[in-house]
């Protein structure tokens, strides 16, 4: 792991109990600045509780949370933007006033707040809706307004819990773009989602928790590699007798046009490639298979069930 950036957030041995139920158990993790950190896990794993401790809604029973190099305290809340999974708007309040109110709650006020409201509404193509009541907006539009509430004060740490739910594909793309823009301007982002394809595209680092405990964490690429089985996706024309060597290959499976070949644990895929070339087979595809985040997620949850 490189140390090119200081961690924005550090959790050390954090534990939170509600009565007899342990929601988060001895969780330690680091979120490095300027990166997108994916927090994944099945429902009830303890993600929301973890996030609530990070935004200082609840306090851990034990362990330590350090944000921007300081111990957690109320004042630091103004530097966090939080889009909770449970979210809503004041139904009868106009969109513009609503956003200004949330800005004021984050200590942004006056003309500056007005300017930011206008800028963000324009950016998310909601300017025409500024003076409409929230209840007159479609669900997707409300989602976007809620997103603005979490970024209006330009927080250094942005925590997004299921930001894509209820959005149409165009809005999903707009949202992804906006998140990457935030990252580009140096913000740190914690993204919690069940949509693994999106997490895979956006996240630099990943942490999975299940049953209150951390399952794994690290850079997304390293995580995927560490879960990689020794497998190759092949597309060839001609004889493929070379796939019958039990020393090298344990299993062959057809997946659409591809042939998926599972190699023995310590076999080198290069040997397979060389054999195929030697056998004069026409190779149109030869790719080492890395498991998707989805696969890893499902495997891990099943494993612990």
């Amino acid at each position, binding site marked *: 792991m490189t140390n090119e950036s200081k961690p924005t957030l550090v959790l050390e041995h954090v534990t939170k109990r509600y009565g007899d139920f342990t929601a988060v158990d001895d969780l330690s993790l680091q979120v490095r600045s300027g990166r997108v950190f994916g927090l994944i896990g099945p429902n009830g794993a303890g993600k929301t509780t973890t996030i609530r401790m990070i935004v200082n*809604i609840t306090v851990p029973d034990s362990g330590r949370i350090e944000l921007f190099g300081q111990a957690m305290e109320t004042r630091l809340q103004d530097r966090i933007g*939080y889009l909770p999974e449970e*979210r809503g708007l004041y139904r009868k309040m106009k969109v513009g006033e609503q956003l200004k109110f949330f800005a004021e709650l984050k200590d942004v006020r006056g003309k500056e707040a007005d300017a930011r409201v206008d800028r963000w509404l324009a950016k998310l193509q909601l300017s025409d809706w500024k003076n409409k009541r929230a209840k007159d907006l479609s669900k997707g539009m409300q989602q976007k307004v809620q997103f603005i509430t979490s970024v209006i004060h330009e927080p250094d740490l942005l925590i997004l819990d299921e930001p894509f739910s209820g959005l149409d594909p165009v809005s999903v793309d707009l949202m992804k773009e906006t998140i990457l823009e935030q990252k580009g301007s140096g913000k740190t982002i914690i993204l919690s989602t069940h949509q693994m394809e999106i997490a895979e595209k956006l996240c630099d680092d990943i942490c999975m928790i299940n049953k209150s405990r951390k399952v794994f964490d690290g850079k997304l690429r390293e995580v995927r590699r560490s879960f990689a089985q020794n497998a190759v996706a092949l597309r060839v024309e001609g004889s493929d007798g070379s796939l019958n060597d039990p020393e090298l290959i344990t299993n062959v499976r057809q997946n659409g046009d591809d042939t998926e070949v599972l190699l023995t644990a310590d076999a080198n895929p290069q040997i397979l490639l060389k054999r195929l070339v030697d056998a004069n087979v026409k190779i149109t595809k030869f790719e080492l298979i890395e498991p998707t985040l989805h696969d890893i997620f499902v495997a891990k949850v099943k494993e612990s069930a």
Partner: protein
Amino acid sequence: MKKFFAVVKREYVQRVRTKFFVIATILGPLVAVGFTVVPALMIGLKTGGPARIAIVDQTGNMYERVATEINNSEERPQPQPTMPNMTPPGPAGARGRAQQTAKLVKADYALERVDLDGRTLDEVKTSLDARVASRDLDSYLILPPNLLTGGEPEYHARNTADMITKEQLQRSISQAVRSQRLVDNGIEEKKLNELSKPIHLKASGVGGEEGKGEAGFFLVFGAAMLIYMSVLLYGQVVLGAVIEEKETRIAEILFSSMRSFPLMMGKLIGVSLVALTQLGIWALTFVAVSVSVTGFSFSMPISPLLFIYFAVFFLMGFFIYATVYAVVGSMVTTTQEGGQLAMPVVLFLIAALFVSFNIIRSPNSPLAFWASMFPFFAPITMLVRITTETPPAWQIILSLTIGFATVVGLVWLASRIYRVGMLMYGKKATIPEVWRWVRQA
């Protein structure tokens, strides 16, 4: 602190700007007037002009006296069918309303003398019955020859259920008979009038502040009604304001921005300012109308000091009870549940009124002292003590301190329950659970 003001501002501005607020502000006084005047009108209105009553005088000399008494009976004070809980504070308004109502109740009588003229009583009765049946007459009275010596007059009417008329006739005849008996016993007519003049009891405080007690009673009653009314009107609003973020699921965003205590306090203050704005508009309207109706002679019915006490204790009472609604709101998830839960607490206010009757009689008893220190009673009971026998200043200050400390304590409690409750979404809280939350949060 800035965030606290942001919450106050939002709660206030969003509510004051609604059509509901504007309509309620305009309609409120109209409804209040409607509730007091309309029932009075309904009771007082004689449909179809004066009651036409024929009097058959078999005594030969009582008609004049009875007729006079019946016509004079209008001047006597009547039982007032006002709605006490809608009476605005201050004796001026109450008294004006009472006189108004008396006028409304004033019944007109068209009396008619019927002599036997040689007919038998039964013949006369038959002819009068016919006239009543044909609606030429409403009723008739028969004064028997032995009226002065215990004979019972008869009353025949189409509508014998008209209690007011029956009552007035009975009183008038009694009075007439009593006077005639006195005259028959040698008392001069002039003397008689002097002797039967009613007296008026004039009450004054020992300190020379005349009529303080009376104004005090109206003040206390007014304060109680005002607190009761405004709590009923705005308690629900406070409840709704507290529940709003739960129902709209905004609570979590708010808690990621500020602590729950300033949030809760901001809500309470914001809604209360709305209430005070509305009450202020009503009070100013009331004063303006009074001034324009009575010329420019509107004067404060109570001393400025008493008015300040009134205002301070009203505020305390309002906040204490409004905060109860906030606590309830923090425990429940829907407004309906909350309304039911909060209702018993309002009973404290009614209990306070009952205790006051005891305190008026002995304002320095230990009961009076403790009742005026108990925050849920103090807004009423302390005012009673102040207006009857003003207690030492330290007691007043202590009572206020306890009262406002209770408000702060309840807000703290509400914010605590609210926060923990929010973290366990959608779960209805039981009392033991709430207690555990309060301790662990």
